[in-house]
């Protein structure tokens, strides 16, 4: 098993922490993992992206030009990374604010209305967990228990009471992802 993923969006969407939770979840299952963020000024309000690799073998390059899955959470990211999905790969996007939806025919494209759902759930900060749930529905590369363990590892102790909220968000995400 090897899954090479890019998650991209704008600063504040929880792109980096979604990647981190995914990486931790893989770690809990004894997989090899790498998490490589775009770093620098981009973190401060601009676009942010992170490459996450989960594999049962030693990971070679932590940065990649093509991906099995691209999770793209704003128009800029969609413009930049749609072409980076491997043929036969998966593209997930949130329709919120998207004026030019993806057009490729050689990949599987899914939409997840995570922004709307997070408003509905009155849980803005769980936006990224809703997206993660959608992804895990399509690519169940880690078990739910591992994700919960991963959340525990990546969240500071004082935020552990939020784990059930996150778990619900993940489950909600699994339900609302749709193939285009």
């Amino acid at each position: 098993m090897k899954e090479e993923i890019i998650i991209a969006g704008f600063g504040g969407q929880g792109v980096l922490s979604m990647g981190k939770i995914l990486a931790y979840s893989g770690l809990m299952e004894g997989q090899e993992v790498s998490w490589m963020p775009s770093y620098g000024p981009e973190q401060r309000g601009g676009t942010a992206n992170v490459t996450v690799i989960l594999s049962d073998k030693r990971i070679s390059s932590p940065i990649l030009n093509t991906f099995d899955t691209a999770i793209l959470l704003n128009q800029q990211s969609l413009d930049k990374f749609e072409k980076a999905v491997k043929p036969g790969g998966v593209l997930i996007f949130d329709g919120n604010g998207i004026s030019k939806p993806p057009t490729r025919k050689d990949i599987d494209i899914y939409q997840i209305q995570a922004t709307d759902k997070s408003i509905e759930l009155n849980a803005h900060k769980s936006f990224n967990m809703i997206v993660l749930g959608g992804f895990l529905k399509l690519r169940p590369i880690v078990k739910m228990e591992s994700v919960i363990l991963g959340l525990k590892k990546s969240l500071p102790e004082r935020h552990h009471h939020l784990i059930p909220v996150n778990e619900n968000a993940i489950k909600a995400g699994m339900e609302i992802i749709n193939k285009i």
Partner: protein
Amino acid sequence: MSEEIKLMKGNEAIAHAAIRCGCDGYFGYPITPQSEIMETLMEEEPWKTTGMVVLQAESEVGAINMVYGGAGSGKKVMTSSSSPGISLKQEGISYIAGADLPCLIVNVMRGGPGLGTIQPSQADYFQAVKGGGHGDYQQIVLAPASVQEMADFTVLGFELAFKYLNPVMILADGIIGQMMEKVSLPLFQKRMTDEEIKEKYPWAAYGKPSHRKPNVISSLEIESVEMEKRNQRFQAKYRKIEENEVRFEELECQDAEYMLVAFGTSARVCQKTVELAREQGIKLGLIRPITLWPFPKNEIAKYTSQVKCFFSIEMNAGQMVEDVRLAVNGKTEVAYYGRMGGIVPSPDEVIEFVKTKMV
């Protein structure tokens, strides 16, 4: 030898490894992309547990001279920075080398010259392995290619620094510093007590007991005859390091007809390139120098009759390629491919380049 496996950034791994291996002092100044090293240390507050001193200096110049002071006291001390800051530290590194002192310096490289970019680069290769500061000196240069190696080389770096009384540099780049991978941290080692230091490092300037001559930590020797002798002693030390401390890794070299040579992040890219090449039936191998100085020249030279072309793959304008050429010594072709200014070459680019040299 290790404990629980954790997921952390390369920069964080260095900080945790430093605390665990009994480091006495860290002196630094913030600069991207390595600031998490000092941030992690400040968060961990090791002065409350191991007694390690962590100090944010007024500048890189101040920081490296604090390292010089601490090293002269026989303490296990380190600093970290990124390219422009490492340039500022060169004065101090030369003094540390000239005074036979052990210390660890971390350079998490970014793209230059000048202020450049904060994106990853390997453009400080020359600076690290061929000087940087003034005078005939060498520092041992370790090039990690993973987060695990960031932790391991912190421990190894101090060991080598004290074994040879010489500065050791960890030469990483923004990717190794910023990415998270699995890491098993070294076990806790106690800091040495002042009494242990006196016994083990009788050269240290810790205060002169009446029975011995003063210990003077200095790189100054005004008499040329004496200064030449001192240099000859340094050179003898460097030859010994070259004999004993070459480290490297080989991947798919046994039957390789073409051979990549790469370190750090570009070696990770090249691992992927080798995977792709093998899928395409190309007999491509990789030699990854772990010590950039001493350089694994004999280990590369060994393959000159087997290999049709060596490829030095770098994130700079072609620096290590000079050492590869020296090692190969004209016996077979050596080509360079690289990207600059914070761009990382992709495995596809590399394999396409390899193909241009295939007959």
